[in-house]
Structures are given as C-alpha cells and as structure tokens.
C-alpha cells in the first residue's frame, strides 16, 4: 500500500466535524466501524467482543457448576466436563480478563485522560483488535475440532501427546495470536503515555488509571513474548518432536512450567493492575476527596509490575524444584503483597471522612475491597511452603484465584463500565436496579467461592468431574451461588440494555470527576476535544461544582466543553 494514500485516508477519517456531531454519529455503515482508526470505536468493538467472551466463559462455568450438583455428575460426560473446564479457563483468561479492562475501557479512556486525539499508533490498535478476533475464532475452533481437555495451563507431556491433535494445536496458535494482540496494545499504551502527554501534565499529574495501564504495558511487552515463544515451541514439539518439552525425546516438561508461569504469573498483574487503576479513580471521585498517597499508589503499580516477574516459581512448589528455589520464591511472593497492601490502605484512607456517594461504581468498588481482601489474605496460605503442599491442586486454590483474579477484576471492570458508561454511550442507567445487580453479583460470588475454601481444606481436588458424597452440601451451595451471580449479571445486562434504549441523556460530567475525559461532551466528539481543556490535576475537585442531577457538574472557572 502506498503510504501517502494511507495518510490521506487517515486525514479523511479525522475530518473536521460540526459541534453537534459525536464519534458515534460521525460516520455510518459497518465499514466505518471495522476500518475505524478511532480509539473510541475500537474500544467499543473490543467491549462487544469481550462481553461475548465473558458470556461464553460464563455459560461454561454454569454448566460446570450445574454438573457438580450431584457427586456422580448431573449433566455431562467426564470427557465433556474436562473440555468445559479447560475452555472456561482459557476463554475467561485469554479472552476476557487479560484484555478486558485495558483493551476495552483503556482504549476508550486513555487518550482522553491525556487530552489527546488518539493513541500514538491508531493502525496498530486496529491490528491488535483484529488479532484478538482471529485468536478468539481459533479458540472457538477448538470447540468444533477435537476439543481440549488439558486444563488451560496446557502442561506437557499430557498436552503434547500424539493422540491429542487439532484441538491443542488450535489452542496454542490462538494463544500465540492473542498474545501478540496484547503486546501491541501494551506497546501502544506505553508509547502514548510517553509521547502524547501534554506539556502541562507531568508524570505525577496523570490520573492513576494511566499509571496502572502503563505498568500493565510493561508486563504485556516484556512477559507476553515469553508465552509466545513457549507456545510456539509447544506447537513445534507436537509436530516435529523437538525434545525440548517431551520426556519421550529427552525434553524437560518442568521447563515448560517455568516458561509458562514466567508469563502467566505476571499475567495476573496484567489483570489486576488496570482493575486497581479503576478503583483509584472511582474511590476518589465518589468520596469527593483527592486520592490519598498518590505517589505511593503510582509507584506501587510499578513495583507490582517489577516484583511480579520474580514470583512465578510459587506455582511450582510441588513440581520438584529445589527447596532453596522454593524458599526464595515463597519470600518474594510475600514481598509482592506489600505494594498491593499499600494500595488498599491508601484507598481506605481516601474514603476516611470522605463524602461517600454510593453510586453503582462505588458499590462495585466496595465489593472489590471485600473480594480482594479475602483473595489476598488466602494467598498467604498458598505462598507458605508447608501449607501449600497440602493445599496444592485443591478447591482452596480454585477459590483463591477466583477471588483475586475473577472477583476483583470483574467487579472493577463492572465499576469501570458503569463509571464510564455515560461517557461512552451518552446515556444514564437506572441507578437503583444497577445497584441491585451489583449486590447480587457480589453476594453470588461469595456464596459460590467461600464454600470452596472449605471443601479445598477438606481435600477436594480441583478439576474433578465427580466427587465423594461428603462434599455434596458445599458443592450445592457453590452452585446456588453461581446461579445468583449469573442472575446478577443478566440483570445488569438488562439495565444497561434499557439504558441504551431509553436512558436519560448524560451530562458531560455526571459524577464530578476532574480527569480530562469528563471535560468533553458525552458522548465525545470525533477528535475528543474541540479545544484542549485546562489541566488542573486529576483529583482536584475544588474547580467543580454540582449544578443538578441532569446537568451534572461544571467547572467554576467558566471553562466548560
């Protein structure tokens, strides 16, 4: 393609608009979406794709939970069950939690929080969306092909045995491609934060969500390629018998575990850091107080990103690695809890004596504190060597990582979705029913996963399609919780759907937030800003005053979009 033409296209895409125009009405037709270079439209396409993945992974989860209603398994064959838990994990992790907050919400919000017109590399952004879709289609291909019953971790030798064919190859390829999408997103975000910050906005004048996305970018750029080469080697091993991972040919399966967790442990910080970024925004806005300990929260994001690289061995305490290695990894695992705790204390200090407003995003964030607290504290038992040997591969682990990864990230994602919803769609949602949904989701989550700590302590192994009768009450409680959780999610989907159809028009700044994305109309114009808004600090609420429910908040220095 000719570069000059492409530049011309870019200019065409960004043509001047009248003031009543917004990014949704700016251009029409499906082509204006799938070829759009506008970060906001790409963000929305990501959001749709990610919500579909969430629905798919959620349906798998429901079938799993319903199957476990009876000890001998109520619904599906054991083989199908193995496929279900593998795909539930793979879809939720690779297609929902990892890209969820950065690629969907981050894409939409990041340039606007910088007061910029777009990401540094709009074409790369669209490419990473396409790669995500191709990867997702390959995962769906797994369903249609022979299936995959290895667990999402794909440990060899089991996963690379000769009898396991197309399903594993498709999953490896899908992981590789989705990984590339993630690298490109992280790279784009980091370059944008680096080079497109306005002169008046120093590093420590950025909203904390940007710090979180920047730290996430570090992990995406540095850790994901290792997963890429790992699955590529797995792919070649399966086809050409390299002897790198398969003991049959002299390979070392534990090396695969090291490689895999070198990515997959930092990946949990790819999930949680953006979630923590949303919490920092929401907790400050809805407490009407500047965030407490700004620099500590910002730097703890970077600390988590760095130290998070050094703890992967705690997934392998029982793999036979040396006890000295185990001790070092155990120590570092405890160490990485420090920056996380710093954040939690700062959030609580932000709320202290604040004027707390229990809007839906804030309700989710309060739930986040509960879920993240339980998840974090139960992590201590798994980071300790003596207890981990007993708890390894039990439901205790399942409960722990669902609390930290899923519960925390899901509630923060929903908090962010409701927080930016008026900006994205230009519509308000029904606050009452959204809060009911939020409470259902969180209550359902606790009912689902608290019993799993108990069954795990009693020795219930994870990933089993059947179980001993004494675990029946706990499993049934868990299944009831899953149904409550699902009903909360569907209620929320309905609330948002109704808001789209007949929600009240949203003001530019409905919550009284001071970061720049609110200094533009809802929904934003095609170029985000008609003129660069004044930069007065992301948590400086003195410049804002509330007019009314309908008109939202305006700046008291006379500057308004």
């Amino acid at each position: 393609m000719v570069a000059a033409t492409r530049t011309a296209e870019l200019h065409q895409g960004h043509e001047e608009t009248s003031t009543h125009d917004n990014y949704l009405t700016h251009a029409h037709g499906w082509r204006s979406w799938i070829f759009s270079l506008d970060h906001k439209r790409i963000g929305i396409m990501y959001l749709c794709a990610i919500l579909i993945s969430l629905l798919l992974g959620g349906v798998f989860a429901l079938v799993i939970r319903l199957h476990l209603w009876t000890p001998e398994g109520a619904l599906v064959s054991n083989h199908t069950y193995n496929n279900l838990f593998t795909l539930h994990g793979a879809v939720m992790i690779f297609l929902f939690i990892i890209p969820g907050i950065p690629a969907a919400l981050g894409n939409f919000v990041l340039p606007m929080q910088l007061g910029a017109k777009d990401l540094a590399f709009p074409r790369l952004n669209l490419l990473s969306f396409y790669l995500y879709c191709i990867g997702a289609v390959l995962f769906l291909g797994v369903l249609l092909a022979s299936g995959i019953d290895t667990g999402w971790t794909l440990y060899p030798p089991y996963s690379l045995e000769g009898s396991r064919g197309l399903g594993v190859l498709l999953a490896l390829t899908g992981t590789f491609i989705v990984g590339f999408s993630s690298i490109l997103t992280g790279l784009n975000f980091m370059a944008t934060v680096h080079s497109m910050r306005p002169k008046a906005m120093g590093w420590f004048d950025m909203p904390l969500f940007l710090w979180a996305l920047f730290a996430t970018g570090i992990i995406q750029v540095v850790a994901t390629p290792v997963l890429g080469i790992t699955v590529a080697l797995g792919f070649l091993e399966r086809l050409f018998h390299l002897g790198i991972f398969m003991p049959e040919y002299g390979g070392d399966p534990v090396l695969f575990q090291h490689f895999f967790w070198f990515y997959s442990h930092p990946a949990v910080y790819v999930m949680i850091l953006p979630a923590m970024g949303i919490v920092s925004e929401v907790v400050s806005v809805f407490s009407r107080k500047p965030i407490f300990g700004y620099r500590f929260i910002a730097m703890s994001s970077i600390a988590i990103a760095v130290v998070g690289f050094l703890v992967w061995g705690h997934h392998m305490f029982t793999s036979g690695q040396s006890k000295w290695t185990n001790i070092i990894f155990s120590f570092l695992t405890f160490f990485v809890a420090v920056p996380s705790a710093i954040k939690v204390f700062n959030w609580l200090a932000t709320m202290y004596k604040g004027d707390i407003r229990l809007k839906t995003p804030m309700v989710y964030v309060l739930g986040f504190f509960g879920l993240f607290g339980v998840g974090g504290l139960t992590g201590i038992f798994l980071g300790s060597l003596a207890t981990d040997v007993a708890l390894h591969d039990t439901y205790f682990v399942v409960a722990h990582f669902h609390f930290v990864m899923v519960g925390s990230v899901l509630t923060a994602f929903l908090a962010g979705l409701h927080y930016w919803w008026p900006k994205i769609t230009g519509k308000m949602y029904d606050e009452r029913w959204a809060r009911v949904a939020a409470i259902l989701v969180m209550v359902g989550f606790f009912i689902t996963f608290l019993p799993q700590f108990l069954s795990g302590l009693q020795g219930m192994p994870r990933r089993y399609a059947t179980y001993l009768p004494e675990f029946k009450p706990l499993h049934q409680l868990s299944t009831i919780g899953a149904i409550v959780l699902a009903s909360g999610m569907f209620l929320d989907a309905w609330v948002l759907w109704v808001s789209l159809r007949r929600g009240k028009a949203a003001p530019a700044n409905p919550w009284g937030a001071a970061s720049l994305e609110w200094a533009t109309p809802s929904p934003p114009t095609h170029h985000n800003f008609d003129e660069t808004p004044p930069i007065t600090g992301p948590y400086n609420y003195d410049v804002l005053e509330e007019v009314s429910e309908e008109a939202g908040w305006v700046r008291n220095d006379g500057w308004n979009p």
Partner: protein
Amino acid sequence: MSSHAKPSGDRRFLQVHFETMGAQLAASKSGMWLFLASELLFFGGLFTAYAVYRANHPDMYHYGQYFLDWRMGAINTAVLISSSLSAAWSVRAAQLGDTKTLKATLWLTLLLAGAFLVVKYFEYAHKIEAGYIWGGEHCVDNLKVAGKLTEHQIEHCLSALPPEVAHLPIPEHMGRFFSIYFVMTGLHGLHVLIGMALYVWLLRRAGRGDFGPKYFGPVDMVALYWHIVDMIWIFLFPLLYLIG
C-alpha cells in the same frame, strides 16, 4: 477529504493526532524500542532453553559443535555486521536528503541480507540431507533403533559425520542440540526475511522520494529493527558455533 486540501510538503506524512513531525517521530521511536524489548524477550525464551540444556547436558554441546562449520558462521557474521553499517548509513543519507546514497545503501543492506540467507541455505541443506535434523528425527539418535532408518540413510548419516566425533561417545538424545540450533537460527532467519521485506518497502518509498531531512522515521525504525536482528546473530554465532 473534498473540502480539505491535502497537506503538502514535509507535513504530508504528519498524522492528524500529532501536532508536529517531531512529536510523531518521538512516538514512533518509543514504540519501536518497546517492540525491540519484546523481541529480546521472545528470543530470551530460546536463549534460556539453550542455557538450561547446556548446563544439564554439556556433552551434547561438545559433540554437536563439530557439526556446525564455524567458517560459514564467521562469513555470515561479517555479512550481517556490514549490513548493519549500510543500514546505519542509509539513515544518515535519509536525514541529509541524499537520495542517491540512500538508495544505494538500502540496496546494499538488502543484498547483504540475501547473502546471509544464501549461506544459511547451504548450511541447512547439508544438514537436512545428511539427516542431522531436529529432535526425535535426528539420524544419529536413530542409528541404533531397529527399522527406523533405511540402510541408505544409515550410510549417509555415517559418511557425513565430522571426523572429530568418531572417537566420542554419542550423547543421548543428540537431536535436542539440533532442535535448539534449528529453532534459534530458524526464528532468526525468519526475522532476516521480514527485514528484507521491509527494505523492499523502503526502496519503493525512497524511489518515490518520500524521505528527506524532515521525514525519515521509517528508515530509522527499520534500521533499528535490523540492528537487533544483527545483534541476536552476534550472540547466536559464538554460542552455537564456537563454544562447544
């Protein structure tokens, strides 16, 4: 685009979300360096695999080195280092607006990259023909496995053995050395191919007169990429060919 004149002159490649050409170049540079960081980690997995196997099976590497011809490797090292020089030169030429030198150095880089792959082709062809291939398919490993190789293949495998290894015991699973060799050099070769495609693209654009003192970003970025490809080879060459 009807109502708007196409931006002309040096700003014709300025994308609308940047204020200045300088800001656009700075963004590309930070993006490129981040990409190179991820490339290093991508290869880093392979270097780790190399190190792990080397630590656990030094005999395998000792035996394996004799199968690689250090002269071929040395020629390719010289070729790649020269190509990095011409790549750096092309950036300078673009910055100075010296289109003639720019085209010449782009061509030179492209040709040297091609020369690298030709040498690599002869190395690969020799090994594949003799049966010195990856993992479980490696002929030395299969010499004693009844029925795995034909007599012709056994003869071929033995006749091509380097004389130095004749008195050495054959390490177990020798094919792993060649797996590592083929995967590392293969992935590197793939990067060389991609680099060549990028240089073809640059040549087309240089022919159109796109580059000059105000706009040379693509030449600069591709040269950065090319240096990293060169640098990875500079590590591969001694690790594989020299320090058995």
